[in-house]
């Protein structure tokens, strides 16, 4: 049980980590993230990179859907814009990766602002359909604008590089992806302890009274779209560097739904939820596959039965979460924390 939580200054009270316990656990997490690539095998490393990319994109969508209350099915499209920007830059300019990723984010943000324009008039499901239309439209551009996007065949790109150092392996990409994911989650955290983030939440909770408080709705909705798409663009750019090929099928509509599901399963309007949701959505299908492999020695037919079942089990898990834990994985985490902050007392 923790007691004596008194602060001397407002600065100490407004900090992200307000106790040394939190700082300790967070440092431990960073340490684990740092050591992980040296201990993990190729498969785990691959998954680690995928989770990192998913965390960035999910955090982006969480800003828009979870915090600002604007449902978007355009996430895959925005990631595609980032992915194609990186691929095109890699083939035509040879810019180092930080510049390319920044441009990918900015490009996606610009597209995001355009897609967000209807959001002043339409909300909820109608906005979801509008962003869905944008997503279909972007997919069409990826497939048809051959001189730039390479059409259905897509583009293959060079590995990411900086000062002559190339990141051609998963091991090296890990050291781009994971630090960037940590940095971007912290940036998002910062947004939500300042004026801009509060304005986003105000728009989600009650847009009419937000306006009365002097919040310009269009400006902040577009800002949310831009920020969210920036995250998606960077994630898409990393995706392109990671697989070193982008095709229209790299960013299918199902991917948008994947990220929306990650936000909902993790916990809408909760940054930790976005992280947990991204990890859950990426890892659970893999864990189910591993289970199948583990069962095969005992039931030789397991792959035959299980492979069609995987999707069903995965879907059932999501439905289960929505019913039994509507506030998402983040809520489970908060419960555990509450338990330990009172421990050894019951309540």
């Amino acid at each position, binding site marked *: 049980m923790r007691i004596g939580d008194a602060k001397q200054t*407002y600065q100490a009270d407004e900090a992200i980590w307000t106790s040394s316990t939190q700082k300790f656990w967070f440092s431990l997490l960073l340490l684990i993230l740092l050591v992980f690539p040296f201990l993990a095998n190729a498969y785990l490393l691959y998954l680690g990179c995928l989770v990192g990319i998913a965390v960035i994109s999910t955090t982006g969508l969480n800003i828009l859907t979870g915090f600002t209350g604007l449902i978007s099915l355009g996430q895959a499209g925005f990631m595609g814009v980032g992915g194609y920007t990186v691929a095109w830059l890699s083939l035509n300019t040879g810019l180092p990766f930080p510049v390319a990723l920044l441009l990918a984010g900015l490009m996606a943000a610009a597209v995001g602002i355009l897609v967000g324009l209807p959001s002043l008039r339409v909300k909820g499901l109608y906005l979801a359909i509008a962003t869905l239309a944008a997503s279909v439209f972007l997919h069409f551009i990826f497939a048809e604008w051959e001189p730039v996007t390479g059409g259905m065949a897509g583009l293959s790109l060079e590995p990411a590089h900086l000062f002559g150092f190339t990141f051609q392996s998963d091991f090296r990409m890990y050291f781009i992806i994971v630090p960037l994911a940590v940095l971007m989650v912290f940036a998002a955290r910062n947004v939500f302890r300042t004026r*801009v983030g*509060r304005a986003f939440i105000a728009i989600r909770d009650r847009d009419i*009274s937000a*306006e009365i408080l*002097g*919040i310009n709705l269009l400006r902040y909705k577009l800002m949310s779209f831009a920020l969210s798409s920036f995250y998606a663009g960077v994630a898409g750019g990393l995706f392109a560097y990671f697989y070193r090929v982008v095709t229209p099928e790299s960013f299918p509509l199902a991917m948008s739904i994947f990220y929306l599901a990650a936000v909902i399963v993790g916990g809408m309007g909760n940054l930790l939820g976005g992280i947990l949701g991204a990890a859950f959505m990426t890892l659970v299908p893999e864990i189910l596959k591993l289970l199948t492999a583990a069962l095969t020695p005992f039931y030789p037919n397991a792959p035959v039965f299980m492979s069609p079942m995987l999707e069903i089990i995965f879907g059932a898990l999501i439905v289960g979460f929505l019913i039994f834990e509507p506030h998402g994985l983040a809520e489970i985490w908060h419960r555990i924390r509450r338990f330990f902050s009172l421990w050894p007392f019951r309540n």
Partner: protein
Amino acid sequence: MSILEISDLSLSFGGVKALQEVSFRVPENTVTTIIGPNGAGKTSLFNCISGFYKPQQGTIRYQGKDLAGTRPPARAALGLARTFQNIALFRGMTVLDNIKLGAHVHMKSGLLGSLMYFGAARREELAIREEVERRIIDFLEIDHIRRQPVASLSYGLQKRVELARALAMRPKVLMLDEPVAGMNREEKEDMARFILDIREEWGVTVLMVEHDMGMVMDISDHIAVLNFGQVITEGLPAEVQKNPEVIRAYLGNSDIDSLRKKLNPDREAA
């Protein structure tokens, strides 16, 4: 000197005339109250002043300037703050964040500053935190709940937090839509005390809509009476109380006629 001057304001929704040539003044640094039966158009009038409804006719002058064409966020920046009849707090946020939101128009940090946090954005946040703590949270006696989510608070406390948020806007005119509706006696007394202090210590003009006549007569400096979208009378509480038209508006036409017949049957007959 009147800070808010409403003249000839008319508003209709289709055939329904919500306001008809409403004119009245809000003298500076007073508690001015609009009273009237349900459906008289009080909240519609508030919505016109905040800029949600566009009146078909008439003007609203604030500090001598016509407000027509000024969007609601810009009106907030000019110093018009309000609370709502059915509390309009942001339920997902803590009390502290709700109040800080009130200061939104007085802050500057943009998206990039927010992402970085350190530097200008942090200085601004800490300055606002201090202002909110010293001037508002202490004043309204809500320091024990500052970390709680708004949704978990009692009705009376939520009303108080909404008042706090409006104060964080550094208002010149504070519009309160039924500030004590649904409160118990103690909460009402607290609220009345806060309203008087806001006028005296902060120099803010209070414009309020309220049904609780006891409180209205106690704390108002100026009262306007609205009925069926028209101003029947305005003046000091004592004058308004005696006005026969006001009594009729509240008791109904038939009542006062029958009352009069019973009282002096001879004169009515003559």
